[in-house]
């Protein structure tokens, strides 16, 4: 069996899963990532929903499944290239070119930039945070606000940069719902006496174990759920955050002062994904994510038979979905390049 060279762009969960499968099947794999380290967003996370397993252990497993023969080009970005019949040429930011018989894009997502929802005061007020910063706090084992105080009241706000046409994001990022519930539970474990709120519009607990986590948050962890979207935040002289919302279920306007406001930001196509879509002329959907050929079948195929897509570059995805997509797309690419099916 003559070896085929496959380039994987993106060494997050989808890219790592793909690299493991393709290398074990005998392809010659090159893994590229713009970051110096592998893992993507997973490397910045502490615990995973719904089972609170360790993000670092999962990352170590994914990395350990990538054989040593896989060539790794880290800290390099793909800035151009050509997709030709049966061949792909990619130009890296250092000026070198690499060539492969097949390409698998796993360029992932960026967290929605919370600065864009100015009414929530992220980057303006001291004690407004994103869920990514909160994961870092959990990882460091210290929950404290900007002035080093332990918070006694915390509000999570769902749907920041999700289902919001004012910032051009009409889709639902779907994983923030369960993330907010998971982080609220973690907060409760660290801060038994704090008052913890979740402000939501809908709670979409679609995955296995998600609804159960929501039950636990209500029954065991005393998290207060308020159905209403926060309309604006302000800061008082003590650096606390004053929130305005409607408690829609009592149909009354509501005011609340908290020590920390945590914005659960949605997913948007990563800058890298958007650049590659432009460079190679890949089709994108109205949400800006890369659009595969089909919504049910062929969810990883493009109009080029030897170019596949995997993970959150095609839309908001859970880790489970990203890893599954990486493996499925790998098999499809393998079948294509090794003429298993025609």
């Amino acid at each position: 069996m003559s070896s085929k060279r496959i380039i994987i762009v993106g060494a997050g969960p989808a890219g790592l899963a793909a690299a493991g499968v393709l290398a074990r099947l005998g392809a010659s794999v090159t893994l590229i990532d713009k970051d110096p380290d592998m893992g993507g967003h997973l490397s910045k996370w502490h615990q995973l929903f719904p089972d609170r397993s360790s993000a670092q252990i999962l990352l170590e497993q994914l990395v350990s499944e990538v054989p040593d023969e896989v060539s790794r080009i880290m800290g390099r970005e793909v800035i151009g290239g050509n997709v030709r019949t049966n061949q792909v040429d990619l130009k890296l930011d250092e000026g070198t070119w690499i060539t492969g018989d097949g390409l698998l894009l796993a360029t992932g997502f960026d967290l929605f930039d919370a600065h864009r929802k100015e009414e929530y005061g992220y980057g303006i007020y001291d004690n407004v945070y994103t869920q990514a910063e909160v994961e870092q706090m959990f990882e460091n084992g210290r929950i404290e606000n900007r002035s080093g105080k332990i918070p006694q009241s915390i509000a999570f706000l769902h749907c920041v940069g999700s289902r919001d046409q004012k910032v051009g994001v009409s889709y639902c990022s779907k994983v923030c719902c369960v993330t907010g519930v998971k982080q609220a539970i973690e907060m409760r474990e660290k801060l038994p006496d704090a008052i913890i709120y979740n402000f939501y519009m809908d709670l979409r607990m679609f995955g296995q174990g998600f609804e159960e986590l929501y039950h636990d948050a209500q029954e065991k962890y005393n998290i207060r759920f308020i159905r209403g979207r926060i309309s604006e935040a302000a800061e008082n002289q003590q650096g606390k955050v004053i929130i305005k919302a409607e408690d829609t279920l009592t149909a009354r306007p509501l005011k609340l002062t908290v020590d920390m406001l945590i914005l659960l930001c949605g997913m948007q196509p990563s800058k890298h994904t958007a650049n590659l879509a432009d460079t190679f002329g890949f089709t994108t959907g109205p949400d800006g994510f890369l659009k595969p050929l089909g919504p049910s079948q062929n969810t990883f195929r493009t109009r080029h038979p030897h170019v596949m897509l995997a993970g959150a570059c095609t839309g908001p995805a859970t880790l489970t979905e990203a890893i599954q997509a990486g493996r499925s797309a790998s098999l499809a690419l393998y079948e294509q390049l090794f003429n298993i099916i025609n």
Partner: protein
Amino acid sequence: MKEFGFQKQKDRQTDLDQIDLSQIASVLQIVDSWKRCIGCGSCAAVCTAGQFSSFNPRRTQMLARQGCYSTLALEVAKCQLCGKCRLVCPRDVDTRKLMHELKQLQISLLP
């Protein structure tokens, strides 16, 4: 009929079998963006009138959507058309225009 000395309470249920929604359909045509509302309550959170009265734009638009005309007429009159609701609406509903149209409808429904 025999008088028992008590009054029968009027049924409070919204009877969708009986309600005529044609008037609301015409408002929906004028304010197309209204169809997108998900009831998040951002409008009610910032509402100028809602801070000091029982007015609630989220609830008011829902009363209209369900054809509860008698309650609607009382509610919609409280709106001052300041338009703050429109600034915060995540679904980009033209809430101010909607309230204006509902006020017009309310006037046309007066006897």
